[in-house]
C-alpha cells in the first residue's frame, strides 16, 4: 500500500506580491507631506520660528527610506525590500552631492554680483582704497601673467615627456617617470609654494623673497603632471596604423611624431592643457607664499610682490577693514570671477574636444 504524501505548497516567487508601479514616488511624496505636517505643528506651537524646509526634506527622505523598506518587506519580501532601500540611498547620495554645488554657485552669484558689476572692478586696482570702491585689475593681470608663464613652462616639458612615454619610453626610466608623475599629481599645492620659496630664497640669498616668477614655477610643479597624464592618454589614442604608414613611406620618426601623431591628437591635447590651466588658476596657497599680496599694479614678473585673483579673494576676506561689507563684497566678486574663468575654460575645453576630436570609428 503506497501512501501519498501531500507536499506543502511551495511559496511561488514568480507570483509573489509586487508593489504597484508608481508606489515609490507616491510614498516619497506622502512621507514629505507627513513630515511637513509635523514641522508645521511644531512651528505653530512655538511662535516666531520659520518653517524648516531643509529639515522637512531631510526627515521626509529618511521617513521614505523606512516606509518603502517596510512596505516592500511585507509585500515583496526581504530581498526586494533591500533593493529598494539601496536604490533610495544611492539616489539620495547623488542629490546630497548636488546640494553644495548648487548652494555654492548660488551664494557666489548673489553675493558677488553687486561688486562684480561696479564699473571700477575691472578697471582699477586697490591702491589707496580703504573703504568701498577700487577693483581687482591688479589681481586679474597678475593671474594672467603668472598662469600664462606657468603654462609656457609646463606645456613643452609636459608634452615632451608624454611623447617620451608613448613613443620612446621603454624600461626602467619610463616606468619611473610614469609612477612619479602619478605621485606628483598628489603633491599638496602649498608644498609646491614652499619649494619655490626654498629654491629662490637660497638662490638669491633673500629670506623674504616674493615675486611673480616664483609663483609661476610653483604652479608649473603642480601643472606638469596633469599635462603629462592628459597628453599621454591622448597620444595613446592615435592608431598605430598611422605611424606605420608614415614609417613605410620613409618618414623619419621625429617627423612622424611632429606631422602625424601630434596633429591627430591636437584637439585632445589642447583640451587637456586647458583643463590643467583651470586646475591651477584657482590655486591660492603657493601664490600666497611666494608671490605675496599687494594693492598695486605690477607688470614685472621678476621683481616685487604680485597680486593674483585667488589671493585677492583671500586677503579681502582675511584683512577686512573698517567697512567690512565692502571687503566681503569684493571677495565674493573675486570668487565669482574665478568661477566664471574656470567654468569658461572647462566649457571651452569640452567644446574643442567635441568639435575637433578625430573620429576613430568607435
Amino acid at each position: 500500500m503506497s501512501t501519498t504524501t501531500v507536499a506543502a505548497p511551495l511559496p511561488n516567487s514568480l507570483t509573489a506580491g509586487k508593489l504597484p508601479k508608481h508606489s515609490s514616488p507616491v510614498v516619497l511624496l506622502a512621507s514629505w507631506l507627513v513630515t511637513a505636517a509635523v514641522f508645521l505643528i511644531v512651528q505653530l506651537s512655538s511662535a516666531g520660528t520659520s518653517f524648516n524646509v531643509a529639515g522637512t526634506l531631510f526627515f521626509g527622505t529618511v521617513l521614505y527610506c523606512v516606509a518603502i523598506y517596510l512596505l516592500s518587506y511585507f509585500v515583496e519580501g526581504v530581498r526586494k525590500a533591500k533593493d529598494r532601500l539601496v536604490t533610495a540611498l544611492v539616489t539620495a547620495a547623488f542629490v546630497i552631492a548636488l546640494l553644495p554645488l548648487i548652494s555654492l554657485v548660488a551664494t557666489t552669484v548673489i553675493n558677488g554680483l553687486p561688486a562684480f558689476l561696479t564699473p571700477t572692478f575691472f578697471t582699477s586696482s586697490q591702491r589707496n582704497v580703504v573703504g568701498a570702491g577700487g577693483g581687482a585689475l591688479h589681481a586679474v593681470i597678475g593671474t594672467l601673467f603668472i598662469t600664462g608663464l606657468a603654462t609656457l613652462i609646463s606645456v613643452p616639458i609636459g608634452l615632451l615627456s608624454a611623447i617620451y612615454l608613448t613613443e620612446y619610453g621603454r624600461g626602467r626610466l619610463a616606468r619611473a617617470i610614469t609612477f612619479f608623475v602619478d605621485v606628483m599629481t598628489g603633491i599638496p599645492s602649498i608644498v609646491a609654494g614652499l619649494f619655490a620659496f626654498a629654491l629662490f630664497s637660497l638662490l638669491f640669498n633673500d629670506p623674504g623673497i616674493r615675486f611673480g616668477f616664483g609663483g609661476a614655477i610653483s604652479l608649473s610643479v603642480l601643472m606638469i603632471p596633469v599635462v603629462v597624464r592628459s597628453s599621454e592618454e591622448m597620444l595613446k589614442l592615435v592608431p598605430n596604423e598611422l605611424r606605420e604608414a608614415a614609417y613605410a613611406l620613409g618618414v623619419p620618426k621625429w617627423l612622424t611624431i611632429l606631422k602625424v601623431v601630434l596633429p591627430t591628437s591636437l584637439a585632445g591635447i589642447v583640451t587637456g592643457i586647458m583643463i590643467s590651466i583651470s586646475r591651477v588658476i584657482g590655486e591660492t596657497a603657493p601664490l600666497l607664499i611666494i608671490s605675496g599680496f599687494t594693492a598695486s599694479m605690477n607688470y614685472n614678473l621678476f621683481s616685487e610682490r604680485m597680486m593674483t585673483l585667488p589671493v585677492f579673494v583671500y586677503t579681502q576676506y582675511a584683512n577686512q577693514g573698517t567697512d567690512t561689507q565692502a571687503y566681503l563684497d569684493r571677495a565674493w566678486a573675486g570668487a565669482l570671477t574665478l568661477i566664471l574663468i574656470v567654468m569658461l575654460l572647462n566649457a571651452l575645453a569640452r567644446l574643442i574636444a567635441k568639435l575637433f576630436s578625430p573620429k576613430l570609428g568607435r
Partner: protein
Amino acid sequence: MTTIVARDSIRAPQRAGDRIFSTATVVAGSLILAVLAAVAAFLLMQSLPAFVATPADFNGDATNFWAYVWPLAFGTLWSALLALLIAIPLAIGIALFISHYAPRRLSQGLGYIIDLLAAVPSVVFGLWGIGVLAPLLQPFYTSLVEWFGWIPLFAGPVSGTGRTILTVSIVLAVMVLPIITAICREIFLQTPVLYEEASLALGATRWEMIAMAVLPFGRSGIISASMLGLGRALGETMAVAMVLSPSPQVIFQLLTSQNPTTIAANIALNFPEAHGTGVNILLATGLVLFVITLAVNMVARVIINRRKAFSGAN
C-alpha cells in the same frame, strides 16, 4: 646543411633630427624626476635650522620641533580621516548611481556635474564654508551637544560660530568627493558585463548583483581612490585656514571652539608674517606634510598599478 646568415641587420641611418628630438624628450622626462627630487632636497636644506631651533623660536609653548609639529600632524590626519568617513560612502553611492542606476543617456552628463565640483577653487570653498555652511550648521551643533553631549566626541561647550573641525571635515569631504567618485565610477564601469548579466539571470535583484559582482571587482579601486582622496584632504590649505578657528593642541572633540589645526593651514596663516628661524620651522612642517602625502600617494599608486596588471583594464 645549415647556412650561417650574417647577422648585420639593416640599420636605419641616424638622422640629426631624430637624435635631437629623442634627446629632448628624454631630458624633459628626466626633468620631472629631477623636480621631484629638488622639491625634497630644497625643502630639507631649508628646514635643517628648524630641527635645532631653541624654544624661543616657536610661538606657543612648544620646546622643540617635534613637540611643535605633533599637534599639527594630528590635526591634519584627524580632519582628513573625518572627511574620508563622510566622503567615501557618499562617493560610492554617487558612483553607483551614475554607473548603474541613472539612465544611460544621462550618466555622462551627471559625471560632468560632479566633476564641476573639482573645478571650484579651494578659496571659494573657504568663503562658502565660513559664509554659508558654518552658520547653517551651528544650531544643529547646539542641539547635538544638548542631546548627545554624553558621547565624548560631541562633548561641549559648543562653538558659537560653527567654525569647528566637523565643519572643516564636511567642506573637505565635498572637495575630495569628485576625485573618489571619478575613480570609483571608472572602476565600476569596468566590471565585466558577463558577471552582471550572469547574476541578474540567476534572479538577483539589482542590489544583489552590485554586492556580488560590482563591489568585489571594484574593491581595490575603491581603496586606492580613497587613498588619493586622503592625499588631497591632507594637503588642502585654504578651506581649512579660512573656516577653522585653530588652537594647536590634540583634541578629539568635534564641536567645541578649540580645534586642532592642520599643517597646511598653519603654514598659510603664519607664513606671511614669519621671519628668521620661524620661516625654517614652517618649511620643516611643510617637509613633514610632503613626506606624509608622498607616502600615501605612493601606496595608492602601487595598489592601482598592481590591480591594472591582473584585471586587463587599459
